[in-house]
């Protein structure tokens, strides 16, 4: 899969008077084409290709119809709609994508992926962008979300099966949210919704999988 921004706009733009009349010729403002303003080039193409490689999704077929944005339950809370995010990936706007709130607010409900007429796995792209952002250690705009993911994986590595009470305590400490939902937590305890003690069954097998998976990723 090639990046979407590998060729220049001029190559594809209609030429001649008719194109000018239609306003299709790239406008040069202050000596800069829109393409230069976007800084489309080697790095941006590399970012588009990296997202495609990690997600296994061809983002270039998206034509911004907006169905994903209209169905997205969290687009009201994000900075970019899923449509805008995919467009930004196509344009290789690495920083805008990796620093966006939207990538962390996605609930992975799969409405975008389901309704895409071009069969773009939008949720899969967002997930890949999350992975890339974490690997590149980009400071996340909604830091609690990746913290929760990491703490969940540590919890699985330790206990094999999720130990929710331990996960909540670990998450609260590392995200410094000691007071939020304390009342809810204690009510859940009283209602018997938390196991007090962890089980360690399955923990050796889970650790083996985590260790091997990390080893492969280090070498690939």
């Amino acid at each position, binding site marked *: 899969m090639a990046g979407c921004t590998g060729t220049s706009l001029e190559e594809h733009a209609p030429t001649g008077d008719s194109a000018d009349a239609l306003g299709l010729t790239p406008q040069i403002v202050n000596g800069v084409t829109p393409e230069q303003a976007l800084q489309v080039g080697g790095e941006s193409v590399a970012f588009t290709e990296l997202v495609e490689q990690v997600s296994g999704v061809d983002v270039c077929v998206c034509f911004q119809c907006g169905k994903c944005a209209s169905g997205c339950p969290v687009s009201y809370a994000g900075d970019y709609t899923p449509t805008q995010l995919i467009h930004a990936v196509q344009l290789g706007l690495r920083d805008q994508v990796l620093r966006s709130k939207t990538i962390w607010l996605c*609930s992975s409900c799969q409405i975008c992926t389901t309704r895409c007429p071009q069969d773009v796995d939008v949720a899969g792209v967002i997930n890949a962008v999350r992975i890339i952002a974490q690997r590149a250690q980009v400071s996340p705009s909604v830091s609690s979300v990746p913290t929760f993911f990491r703490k969940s994986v540590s919890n699985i590595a330790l206990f094999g099966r999720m130990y929710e009470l331990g996960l909540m305590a670990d998450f609260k400490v590392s995200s410094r949210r000691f007071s939020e939902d304390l009342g809810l937590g204690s009510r859940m305890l009283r209602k*018997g919704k938390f196991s007090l003690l962890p089980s360690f*069954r399955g923990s050796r097998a889970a650790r083996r999988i985590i260790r091997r998976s990390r080893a492969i990723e280090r070498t690939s």
Partner: protein
Amino acid sequence: MHSATAREYERSLLAVARVVGLELAEVENWHCCGSGAAHSVSRLLGTALPLDNLVSTRRMGLDEVVVPCPSCFSRFKSALHEVENEPELRTQVEEIVEGDYRAEILHPLQVFSRPSMLAAIANARKQTFADLKVVCYYGCLLTRPPKVARFDDVEYPQSMDDVLRAAGVQTLDWSCKTACCGASLTVTRKDIVVKLCHDIFQAAKDVGADAIAVACPLCQLNLDTREEEVEHEYEESYQLPILYFTQLIAMAFGLSPGDVMLRKHFVVPDLKLAEVTAGA
């Protein structure tokens, strides 16, 4: 389901399975599938964790896995779909998991909505719920994305309605069957979960529902534990119990509200419901 959070789902599911003659065995030495969290850290890990559990299943001589949690259901199905379609990922996964992982993944709704099971459920009815109108909330991942889930109608599923109607429960049409409750954002951004749950409660109330039936532990947890905050935030009264579909069927089979642990919920069904289920 090992955790205490959804013990009432486990208990009622096993009770229903016993009555309709569905034999279930627990996967030996299973571990967490990683859910969305592991997958958002590493696709390889998020694929290898569930498939390793399928290797354990195959070692028991079994090749069908009933997965009651839709988040797990989706992760298992996605993992199988991804290794089938991505040769490079498959090669890496097969370096990690040792053995055959091919198995059929089924949600309990898929099993119970088979014609033979619907008949078995109808035959086993001992109690009816007079005056109880329920909306079925399927959530996100049971049907989405359809090429992975391959289950029911993607936008307007019917299987839970069919199963509950067979058990004598009146179910209503409504517009939020496959809406999103916000899932694990309840830990990190509860304001979003409160907003999304409000939309679901309002849609249920608009059609005159007395309760919401669910097939997902996280949907149950979000709707049930955030309901009071939603009522406070939006100055509305809903008082809608959030019941596992298996709790309703088990009670139709004659189990008591105590047997299916209704008191574990934050919004405990009111007297009307308790009376009907106990006395009808």
